[in-house]
């Protein structure tokens, strides 16, 4: 019994207590550090998102001013009949509505008020005219969007002179639905992300359609089937190495292979997608291989033992169990592809394209490039549009990843 109590005192003894306390402290430190790490990451993300939302939400709204236009007395050559006809759009575009607005503004708010209105104003006025051609004969009070410069001033960050002028104007903030439906433009007040969004969508579709299956298949081959020899070592190293190749070099490759050799169309989502697929595939392969490696061998044994072929083992058991990890690779790979600019610059996706692409072979821009270009625009109105476009990109990314994340959570298993 002596030894028993000795043992007992050993675990409850002072020295052991001290040691345990120390270990607990280490545990708490460790846990705190974990919490701290995730806290920092999340705080940082929150900071980024909040700043972007703060700057970008303005991009989704625009300021409109009440303007009295007397069409009857203006020197506008437009007829009601044309406005009701099929050529209304073109008629309106060439009618010189800018001048009409400027006149009215100067008349109403005084000298310099012409600056208040710009491209978007004329467009909006044209739309309103087409909607209600009878306006042409009246003196009408209309809500007209401000020019981008005035819009910035109305939001309190622009020219003090304009701000002063705006005090006299009756304004309101409205949701700018055009931002989501229009495409790139040079006037910040009429830009939209639709073209770039569609371009990104098509590009990423091509990327996903290629990188995911190819990545998964390559990972399966390397991890499950490939004999361990020099050749597969070469493949393995070259895949790992591809992940470290700067993306711009993939752009060079795309330029050389897809444009100069295969003569695929420049600036097209097809080429962008192909290039990004080459860039994303290694990430998926690496993540996929790690996931496949962590499937316990006993599962393979079990399936082989009931007479499943290697292929069946892989596709029935290993792949589903490795899927969460593969999806993680896909998510971060796709996120990266979606936010990538450099290689796309090399294959011409930095072009100014004012209409959304119709297919994967049409010239298109993509969101990150659009953001990159807008961030370098002279016009101050682009600042909030840039942030707004970033928000759109992030939302797009989240939606795209949503499915993958759902699947990942669904397939995740502990054993």
């Amino acid at each position, binding site marked *: 019994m002596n030894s028993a109590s000795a043992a007992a005192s050993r675990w409850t003894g002072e020295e052991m207590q001290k040691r345990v306390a120390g270990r607990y402290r*280490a*545990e708490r430190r*460790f*846990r705190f*550090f*974990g919490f701290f*790490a*995730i806290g920092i*990451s999340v705080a940082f993300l929150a900071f*980024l998102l909040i700043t972007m939302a703060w700057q970008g939400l303005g991009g989704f709204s625009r300021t409109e001013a009440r303007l009295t236009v007397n069409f009857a007395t203006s020197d506008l050559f437009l007829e009601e009949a044309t406005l009701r006809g099929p050529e209304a759009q073109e008629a309106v575009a060439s009618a010189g509505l800018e001048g009409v607005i400027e006149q009215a503004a100067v008349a109403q708010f005084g000298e310099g008020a012409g600056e208040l209105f710009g491209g978007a104003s004329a467009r909006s006025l044209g739309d309103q005219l087409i909607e209600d051609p009878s306006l042409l004969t009246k003196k009408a009070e209309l809500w007209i969007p401000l020019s981008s410069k005035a819009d910035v001033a109305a939001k309190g960050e622009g020219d003090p002179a304009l701000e002063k002028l705006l005090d006299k104007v009756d304004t309101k903030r409205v949701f700018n639905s055009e931002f989501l439906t229009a495409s790139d433009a040079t006037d910040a007040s009429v830009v939209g992300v639709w073209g770039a969004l569609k371009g990104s969508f098509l590009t990423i579709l091509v990327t996903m359609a290629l990188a995911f*299956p*190819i*990545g998964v*298949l*390559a990972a399966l*081959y390397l991890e499950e*089937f*490939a004999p361990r020899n020099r050749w597969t*070592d070469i493949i393995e*190293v*070259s*895949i*790992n*190495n591809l*992940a*470290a*190749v*700067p993306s711009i*070099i993939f752009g*060079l*490759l795309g330029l*050389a292979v897809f444009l100069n050799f295969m003569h695929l169309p420049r600036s097209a989502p097809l080429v962008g997608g192909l290039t990004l697929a080459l860039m994303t595939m290694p*990430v998926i392969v690496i993540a996929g291989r*790690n*996931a496949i490696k*962590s499937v*316990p*061998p006993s599962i393979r044994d079990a399936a082989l033992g009931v007479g499943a072929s290697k*292929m069946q083992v892989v596709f029935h058991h290993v792949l589903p169990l490795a899927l*969460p*990890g593969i999806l*993680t690779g896909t*998510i*971060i790979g*796709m*996120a*990266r592809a979606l936010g990538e*600019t*450099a290689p796309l*610059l*090399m294959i011409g996706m930095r072009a100014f394209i004012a209409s959304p692409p119709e297919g994967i072979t049409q010239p298109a821009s993509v*969101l990150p490039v659009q*953001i990159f270009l807008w*961030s370098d625009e002279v016009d101050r109105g682009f600042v909030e549009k840039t942030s707004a476009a970033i928000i759109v990109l*992030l939302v797009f*990314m*989240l939606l795209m990843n949503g499915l993958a*994340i759902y699947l990942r959570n669904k397939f995740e298993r*502990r*054993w």
Partner: protein
Amino acid sequence: MTLSIALVAVLLLAFAAGLFARRRAVGLRGGGARLNSLPGYHAFYVALWAALPALLLLAIWTPVQTGLIEQSVLSSPVGQKLPAFDLARDTILTEAREIAAGDREAGFNAESSELAPIYDAATSRYAAVGGSIAIVFALLGAFLSMRRIGVDFRARSSVERWVMGLLVAASLIAILTTLGIVLSLLFESLRFFQQVPITEFLFGTTWSPQTAIRADQAGSSGAFGSIPLFWGTAFIGAIIAMIVAIPLGLMSAIFLTQYSPPKLRAWLKPMLEILAGVPTVVYGYFAALTVAPVIRDFGIAIGVSSASSESALAAGLVMGIMIIPFVSSMADDSIAAVPQAMRDGSLALGATKSETIKKVLLPAALPGVVGGVLLAVSRAIGETMIVVMAAGLAANMTINPFESVTTVTTQIVQLLTGDQEFDSAKTLAAFALGLLLFVITLILNLIALRVVRKYREAYE
């Protein structure tokens, strides 16, 4: 568009053939025999044979057809009158094609409207020919493969051979890409080395690509010593960024798998992954306008007089944050995949959670963790925007993190996207840098492969 009809027809045919094959295989089984392979494999086998040769044919036919159509259109009376200048002719032909396809109503050129019907007719004619051949192929493939269906026929092995081929092909794409990259870098690099001695490039310690790219351009001399760039790359990407990303990423992963409630984890993990997808311009602005000034002031406060608002530290810190998800998500997956029995074994010995993590889970999850870290380093090496905006473009050889440095990739991007001329050392240097970076990462990867192989702990 009859070719797409042929395509659909082939696919339908393959599908039907598959169904039929399945029926036959099931029928065989009904006769009491035990099939070598499941009926589904027979179906798949037949469908593959019906579809693949026909699709291959279509793939070859499509470009051939374009040429044939063009020839026949050009040899038509209207076509012969077209201008000889190829751009003008091509433009008209393209317009005609688009009108024929219904993509537009009229072209800039009057001839195109005349040509459209001819184009249309030729298209249907050749598509009909190609389509029928493809369908015949499909039928032949289906018929011949159908004859092999039998009790002893190893349909599964055959199908699996196809799949295996697919797997091998998928892996080979990596090799081809690598090859492509090497080739697209090699020739230009060789030209570079004709202008700049390779020893200077490899061992030189000044980088100043101010050399003239045209006879009359600014700057005339240039120094192409790549060492400061590689040092900068290592300093920012592999040292500072990793000092941020590895602990934060790893600890986040550990917290998520081991300490946080599963519900929270399901939310936090995708949140962290957003960090990887934020466009780098955003990080660049953040680094340059928010982080860099703070760091400069801090540097000056602690007495580093050379602290500048372009600093390696600012770029590295922000980059580290950006790549956290590469480390955290992959480590998270690998840790979560370690069997519960390992965890139990350790906990039952009286280990604390952190001891279990450090001594049992992490070693067992090592391949995944290392994989994630390697990906993160790779991403950091490839990053440009943050470096340009926050660390500057000056190639300094310094270990002072408050000073401005630049990286290989940044220089490559600058050289390639700026004003360029494809036979000056300045632009060619980008290719040489790319090649050297490629070789260096290759060597590092070889080492990493060895190390991981050595330390990997396989469970079970």
